[in-house]
């Protein structure tokens, strides 16, 4: 498991996507089959491994590790799995192969899982134990998406991502024919034409310099919907719903999949209402439209939807504009339309996996709220619960991480220790006297909360040390924004 542990360790420290790509390509170049196939299956989430919860981990620790030293170590390290990985009396490692470990885990009975975990830990070195525990604790595993894994496979094999997708979905782990083909040891496997994910056009945030280039003859403008990107695929008699990252989410969206027409691949945004706003068509009547410019694809999409109107599937309308100022005005009114900004898309370019589309989100809103509770998290960060006055009672409206410069953090810690009024385990209650400024993207109605609402994506901007708390107490300003 050495190569796998090294892979996971490198990925976890890699600062961005291009580095993760290089790390993955390198891994696939060196790892033997079937190890590479099982690792690809795990990284893409294609196979579910049984999970060992914190309670079971603590039992293992209690059975095998010294109680006092374990407690002190955990206080120092913070993370339970990492502490066990560091303390477990293991071996030099390098003997166990990831393919065997994953298969044993898949086949493990619930009753024997703990013993299997202990048995594996015994044969692994520190870094391997850490990577192994991440496999079985089901926490945030590795910061890579299914799409990134397939892009790396494509580069390793000198082919394109769509070809990898096509073959991928026709095989099951550990995908040995796929790796034989990518490694130049075999023919391209015949796929039998199963429906596969087609990477959609990616978007990036708009920049100031882009604004000069935008003209309505060159660019379409559309709403940027507040939802989740989905791809609806109907090919060769089967229907699938995929997420933005290429994860198969058909099971969770069976109603939606029933609406997909044979021979089409549609790209759109799934809204909270269950409706899909469509903006691209990649395949129509079993013909690949990706070489065609976006202009043509949108026309095809429109006629496709007109030919077979379905309530839940609608066309994302174009926004008529002449100047960039018109776009700014749309953007400022986006939330009235249930959108979070606008999208600007070049009309005359064919499909490409590059970031061709430009997202122009509405700015975060700002407000202030009063600090009610602080919670020290296991990883050492501090979470703050902020509130407003509703009627006579203070009601929490959101929770933010205290991510401030060092001197502000120490000032905050001092303030908390001087103003603590109560303590519930790791949570400290403070006098409601400190005002924090936060950014948020929207206000959601939340009938089961005391405040009746909750801030979406709140982020702490700064602490307003001198602002009197009673100046910001009332909640009504936020209630007006809720939807």
């Amino acid at each position, binding site marked *: 498991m050495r190569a796998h542990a090294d892979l996971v360790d490198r990925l976890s420290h890699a600062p961005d996507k291009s580095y993760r790509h290089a790390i993955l390509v390198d891994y696939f170049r060196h790892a033997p089959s079937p190890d590479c196939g099982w690792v690809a299956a795990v990284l893409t989430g294609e196979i579910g491994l049984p999970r060992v919860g914190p309670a079971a981990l603590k039992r293992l620790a209690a059975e095998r590790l010294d109680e006092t030293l374990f407690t002190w170590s955990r206080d*120092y390290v913070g993370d339970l799995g990492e502490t066990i990985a*560091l*303390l477990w009396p293991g071996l030099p490692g390098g003997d166990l192969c990831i393919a065997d470990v994953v298969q044993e885990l898949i086949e493990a009975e619930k009753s024997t899982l703990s013993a299997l975990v202990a048995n594996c830990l015994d044969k692994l070195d520190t870094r391997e134990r850490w990577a192994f525990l991440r496999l079985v604790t089901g926490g945030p595993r590795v910061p890579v998406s299914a799409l990134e894994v397939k892009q790396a496979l494509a580069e390793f094999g000198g082919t394109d991502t769509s070809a990898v997708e096509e073959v991928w979905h026709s095989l099951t782990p550990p995908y040995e024919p796929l790796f034989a083909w990518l490694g130049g040891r075999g023919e391209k496997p015949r796929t039998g034409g199963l429906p596969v994910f087609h990477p959609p056009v990616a978007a990036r945030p708009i920049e100031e310099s882009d604004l000069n280039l935008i003209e309505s003859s060159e660019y379409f403008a559309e709403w940027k919907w507040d939802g989740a990107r989905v791809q609806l695929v109907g090919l060769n008699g089967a229907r699938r719903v995929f997420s933005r990252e290429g994860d198969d989410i058909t099971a969770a969206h069976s109603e939606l999949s029933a609406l997909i027409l044979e021979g089409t691949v549609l790209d759109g945004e799934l809204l909270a209402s269950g409706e899909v706003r469509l903006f691209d068509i990649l395949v129509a009547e079993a013909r690949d439209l990706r070489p065609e410019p976006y202009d043509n694809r949108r026309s095809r999409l429109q006629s496709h939807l007109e030919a077979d109107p379905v309530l839940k599937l609608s066309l994302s309308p174009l926004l008529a504009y002449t100047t960039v100022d018109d776009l700014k005005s749309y953007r400022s009114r986006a939330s009235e339309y249930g959108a979070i900004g606008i999208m600007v898309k070049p009309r005359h370019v064919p499909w490409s996996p590059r970031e061709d589309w430009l997202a122009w989100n509405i700015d975060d809103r700002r407000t202030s709220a009063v600090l009610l509770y602080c919670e020290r998290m296991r990883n050492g960060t501090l979470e703050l619960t902020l509130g407003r006055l509703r009627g006579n009672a203070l009601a929490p409206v959101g929770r933010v991480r205290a991510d401030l410069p060092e001197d502000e953090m120490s000032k905050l810690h001092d303030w908390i220790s001087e103003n603590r009024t109560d303590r519930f385990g790791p949570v400290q209650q403070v006098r409601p006297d400190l005002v924090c400024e936060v950014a948020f993207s929207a206000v959601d109605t939340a009938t089961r909360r005391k405040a009746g609402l909750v801030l979406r994506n709140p982020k702490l901007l700064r602490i307003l040390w001198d602002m009197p708390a009673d100046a910001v107490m009332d909640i009504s300003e936020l209630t007006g924004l809720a939807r």
Partner: protein
Amino acid sequence: MAARAMRPEDWVRVRPEGLYVEPGNFFVDPGRVVETAIITHGHSDHARAGNGRVAATQATLDIMTQRMNRKPWRDCQALAYGERLQVGDVTVWLAPAGHVLGSAQVVLEYAGQRVVISGDYKRQSDPTCAAFELVPCDVFVTEATFGLPVFQHPDPGYEVTRLLHSREIYPNRSVVVHAYSLGKAQRMLALLRAADYQRPIYVAPIILGVCEIYRKHGIDLGDLRALDQLENNPGSEIILAPPSKPGEGIVGKLRDPLIVMASGWMTVRKHARGRGAELPLVISDHADWNELVSTIQDLAPEEVWVTHGREDALILQTQRLGIKARALSAIGNGAGAEQ
């Protein structure tokens, strides 16, 4: 008052200046300026400038002379490992500690008792300094930098393999290894050479100066170049520099370098993240938990005094071995006042 045998804490104790040896009227690694000092090794938290008389190994004296801006002492005396020196009523000699070039344990003999002060030490093999030697004693004063069982240092050879593998992953990124200029930097160089990396290695000026001392003491570290010989686009060359803030120093001038940190602290992921290491390597010049405990086991002294790090866990584990143990900071606070 009934007569009783003299105990080690009657003649070795902690004073504000540092660890004080009364019958010789001298200090070991004092934190403040004193008249007479024995220095275990050249790191700045052990070796300070301005003392009157200083005794240490020749290598440590050389390192102090080079690293200190002002005159490091009034008089100095070089001691070879094993060479006896009489200071007052105390016989002093040095034994290798395996930490960095010239590092020593200080052996104190008085009234039929022997106290050994480990200074910083390690048991892992290291071609850049003499290997740690076990000196049987009544009291062993041990460091405890990594005195928690989470610290179990892996094979440094494998860690260096990982570093070299990064050059294959990123053929166009220079590799900046952050390592302390005395000891760790030279160890990294030796490990790279042992892994058959024979290309020139570019090193910061402060490291180059220390490497020169190592070379004089017979440690060859291969082809080393000053940073200004680095080309504009250094490809995947390896660069050694002391830790610096992001964007500062040499790192600030390179485009897209891979930041490698080599330290025992890299064991714990939050430290690696906190210091911005993209490739954290666990390579240390301090004893890890197993070395600390097994050294105490091997020596089986009457008593262990623990200093310099996380004391509680090591004290507990030593007591479990049936050996008396306490924090060094507790020695001399009242205990030595009985006359």
